[in-house]
């Protein structure tokens, strides 16, 4: 068989396996569908949304759900469905970017404290220990307060406050791996430590990292929208979900429908990430039987 057809066969087999996994693993399937749907909404928000997210129409202010505006309109007559759809981008990108950053940092710190011995590891351990005693949300609020409200501040706040737990989990896994025979074997034949770290330890820790990243993404959505709700996130008129809820709170008496859609969207996205994480855990982590 030629190399190309071999590769094709391999891909085909993998696809069959993936389909089988998805059928066996309902969590993973549902989570994947939800997150894919949000991904599409994030990329094509403007095309999907029936109206412009910031298109005002003061004659239609605070209208309840109708055929023209499925979820109603806000005080400026903006279509709520469009605002929620277009707002997907902000929440999703904040979650994905900050979890990527915190995983990157957390993995580096976790590898150092789990694999490298000496003063550096002790120092990293101490810092992570201390950082873990600052409640996540409080740390995020403080950082957001110092950085000032906005997208950058939000991402930095969440990335930093999510790094310690990830580093702790990576550390735990690395401590397990370093006791394995294959690491000893690699050491014995004289493989250099950094190579062991990158080629043997990291790939074996990858499972834990992927699962944790997915679960943390759900938490990042909750934190990001909570900061938005508190007025410390992305500023209006950007239709960020948390900010929309904060705005809707002021109209709870006259227009209670304003808070339905953004909250539903947040919950669905968190649900998607949680299911994805749980599904990945069932799939990848043989120690957790179901």
């Amino acid at each position, binding site marked *: 068989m030629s190399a190309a057809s071999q590769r094709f066969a391999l891909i085909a087999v993998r696809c069959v396996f993936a389909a089988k996994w998805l059928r066996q693993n309902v969590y993973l399937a549902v989570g994947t569908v939800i997150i894919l749907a949000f991904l599409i909404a994030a990329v094509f928000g403007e095309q999907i949304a029936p109206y412009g997210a910031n298109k005002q129409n003061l004659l239609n202010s605070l209208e309840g759900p109708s055929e023209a505006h499925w979820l109603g309109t806000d005080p400026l007559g903006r279509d709520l469905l469009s605002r929620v759809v277009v707002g997907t981008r902000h929440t999703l990108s904040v979650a994905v970017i900050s979890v990527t950053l915190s995983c990157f940092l957390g993995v580096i710190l976790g590898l150092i404290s789990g694999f490298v011995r000496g003063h550096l590891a002790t120092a990293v351990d*101490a810092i992570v*220990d*201390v*950082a873990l*005693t*600052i*409640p*996540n*949300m*409080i740390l*995020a*609020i*403080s*950082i957001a*307060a*110092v950085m*000032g409200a906005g997208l950058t501040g939000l991402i930095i706040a969440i990335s930093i406050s999510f790094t310690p737990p990830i580093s702790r989990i990576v550390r735990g896994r690395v401590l397990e791996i370093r006791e394995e025979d294959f690491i000893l074997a690699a050491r014995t034949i004289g493989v250099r430590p950094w190579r062991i770290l990158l080629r043997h330890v990291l790939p074996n820790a990858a499972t834990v990292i992927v699962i944790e990243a997915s679960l943390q993404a*759900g938490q990042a959505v*909750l934190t990001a*929208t*909570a900061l938005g*709700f*508190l*007025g*410390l996130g992305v500023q209006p008129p950007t239709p960020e979900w948390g900010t929309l*809820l904060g705005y*809707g*709170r002021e109209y*709870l*008496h006259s227009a*209670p429908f304003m*808070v339905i859609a*953004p*909250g539903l969207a*947040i*919950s*669905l996205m*968190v*649900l998607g990430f*949680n*299911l994805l994480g749980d599904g990945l855990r069932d799939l990848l982590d043989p120690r957790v039987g179901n």
Partner: protein
Amino acid sequence: MKPALRFLALRILRAIAIAFAVVTIIFFLFSLVPGDQAAYLAGPGSTQAEIDRLRESLGLNDPVLIQYFRHVAGLLQGDFGTSEVYKSDPLPFIIERIPATLALTAAAIGLTVVIGIPAGLIAAMFHARLPDLAISVSVVALLAVPNFWLGLLLLSFFSVQLGWLPSFGFSSPAALILPSLALAARLIALVARMTRGVTIDELGKDYVRTARSKGLGRITILLRHVLRNVMIPTLTVIGLQTGYLLGGSVVIERLFAWPGIGDLMINAIGQRDYAVAQAVTILFVIAFLIINLIVELLYVLINPRMRAA
């Protein structure tokens, strides 16, 4: 010294060391605030001389390290700096607001125990049947719902539509219901899930079979024998989620205009009153450390196996 006392002493020393480190981190974090604090506080229309005088009186001209040592020395004497909004020591304003936050978090923990544990026990008793399914689905749903949205929905329904409960402030004990429920929802879900898992495990153990063969009823076994073993993981969950409770209380207090320290913190940030924001952050961390100490102590009290260790 008794091992238990030694353990306690070591834990307390560790907590103090961590508190000191956190104070340091928070100080340097807040020293990063951009812009001229003195110019902002002096207000628009103030002369350069006034701004300079204010900056000098706040000690903002000194090197950061000097400011840091002054800050730590102040904290040790109970001096949390000067609130620029209240023009005074912020401590009385903070202390005045502590009971409301305590009431909120305590009520949330109470609700968690009262709802979460029975829900988990029921799910385990009806394992793989309808009640179990219903509870398990609710748990997954509750873990995805943001607490402030749940709060908004509760507020909208019970206060605005039905008018049964007050929508803001801490005017009566009834006002506690909605905010503590919104804050507790996530914890209730976690505790129910944990209780369900542990109970299913425990029900398959030998001592349960022995109790059954002795003729004890299922409910008696559950409440007298199994529940005892379920308490430890439950306590663990609550202990691990203390950070969530404190952080969540800030958001919930804001939503319900609850007169606690979380609301104070967000107000202070809005008014750029960083001395207060910093003081509240430090207080939150200290509360967190103290609660974790208490949880560790409770562990030793509940679990005789740990007393020997």
